[in-house]
């Protein structure tokens, strides 16, 4: 798109009267833009929410690992110390701590009942490891543990995590897919609305061309009108979408974050981009449709 096409938007408002001001083509453009902006905001929210969920899941699952040391009672303290010193020198670990007896009892409660004499049991020591940054290299850590604390077992939860990470990836895909679909539908509908509008105004264009208007003058007037209308419609639609999302029944609880569509943080800014995108689409579509109608006129 040439810059002149954008500049034309700012100038020569007087010429706009040559485009019929009302009628169903304007309503069509307005409404199409509005409803698709509304859907786009929803899709955007869905996409952001699924992406957020996916990230949270992967993070939460990937960030904690457990090292279990089932050493004989007399070697226990030495091996725990060895593991601790290994962990201290392993990059990608933000913190680790040995679980207390109470914590271990709580973990075992569903299977062993409350009030088990944890001290009397030959329970292994459990060390919870929280990753930092990109995490640590599990294989490297395993090898070092094997060498220095033979009874320590690293459980990085891969087995439990895999399906959930897959599900999270799938969710993310689903969100992007919705956004893509709505985007395509928007583009197509706006194009079609522009074509319909220009076709409905074919006679106006004919008369203008016959009385000596230049192509750029005619196309410019139509582009301004329909781009403005599309931008207006999209703004209303996007605003309605944001309001609707805000008013959605608050399913927000710490556990059911999956179903929470509302925007978060910088996410609130994204709907602002919907109207300009729709407007640029309308601009291009109108320009194309106008060029096509004009080409048919001598």
């Amino acid at each position, binding site marked *: 798109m040439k810059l002149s096409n954008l500049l034309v938007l700012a100038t020569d408002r007087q010429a706009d*009267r*040559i485009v019929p001001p009302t009628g169903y083509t304007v309503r069509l453009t307005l409404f199409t833009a509005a409803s698709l902006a509304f859907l786009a905001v929803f899709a955007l929210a869905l996409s952001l929410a699924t992406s957020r969920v996916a990230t949270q899941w992967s993070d939460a699952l990937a960030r904690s690992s457990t090292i279990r040391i089932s050493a004989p009672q007399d070697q226990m303290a030495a091996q725990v110390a060895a593991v601790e010193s290994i962990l201290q020198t392993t990059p990608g670990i933000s913190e680790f701590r040995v679980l207390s007896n109470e914590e271990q009892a709580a973990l075992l409660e569903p299977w062993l009942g409350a009030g088990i004499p944890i001290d009397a049991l030959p329970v292994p020591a459990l060390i919870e490891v929280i990753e930092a940054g990109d995490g640590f290299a599990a294989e490297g850590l395993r090898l070092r543990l094997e060498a220095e604390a033979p009874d320590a077992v690293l459980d990085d939860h891969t087995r439990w995590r895999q399906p959930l990470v897959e599900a999270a990836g799938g969710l993310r895909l689903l969100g992007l897919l919705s956004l893509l679909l709505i985007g395509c539908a928007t583009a197509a509908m706006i194009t079609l609305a522009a074509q319909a509008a220009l076709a409905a105004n074919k006679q106006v264009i004919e008369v203008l061309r016959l009385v*000596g208007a230049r192509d750029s003058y005619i196309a410019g007037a139509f582009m301004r009108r329909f781009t403005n209308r599309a931008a207006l419609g999209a703004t209303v639609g996007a605003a309605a979408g944001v309001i609707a999302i805000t008013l959605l029944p608050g399913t927000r609880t710490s556990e059911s974050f999956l179903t929470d569509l509302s925007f978060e943080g910088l996410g609130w800014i994204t709907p602002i981009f919907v109207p300009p995108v729709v407007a640029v689409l309308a601009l291009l579509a109108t320009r194309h449709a106008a060029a096509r109608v004009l080409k048919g006129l001598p």
Partner: protein
Amino acid sequence: MIELDNVAYSYGNGPALLSDVSLKLAPGSFHFLTGPSGAGKTTLLKLCYKDLQPTLGHVRFFGVDGPELSRDAVASLRLKIGVVHQDCQFLDHLSVAENIALPLTVSGRPISASDLDDLLGWVGLSDQAMQYPQELSGGERQRAALARAVMTAPDIILADEPTGNVDWDMSLRLLSLLVELNKMGKTVLIATHDLSLIRASKSQVSTRVLRITGGRLTLAGADL
């Protein structure tokens, strides 16, 4: 200023509607174009304002061959040629006055309110200036179309049946407007089937009467 040089024209793949037509609209000349309904008068006029391209031959506008004009040059050309179309088309959402001033608006030229008033008065549309085109009677539309054609003070005026729907008194009034413009040096070509109008013009201006029959353009004799 407009020259047709051995022009032929046929719609689609049909037979030639016009053939071997040569015509020179010299500056300041006054032509009538006549012929039976369906002979090709409107078609010939459309060739003269580049709404149609000739099948054969050349049409030159102010010395330039038609195909050599860019689209913007055609737009400028249309400002120098005022046309009264047979099916007078207007922009329905603009008032009659705005429609008449439209050629000035689209070319970014200033609109003189007094000129517009004078013109409206001459064609008898002062009362209808603020109406919309679809609220005009048949004759009023034709007069508005004529007013729009002469609004830009064009060098050439092509009028297709400008008096088809108006009464005799108004016809004479419109004719005298065109004669007036011709006396100011404008070239005028009127397509009409109204022979009395042609006869009435004889006393006011020296005209050439062209007739289309059988696809040929001939000069009509004194038999009118």
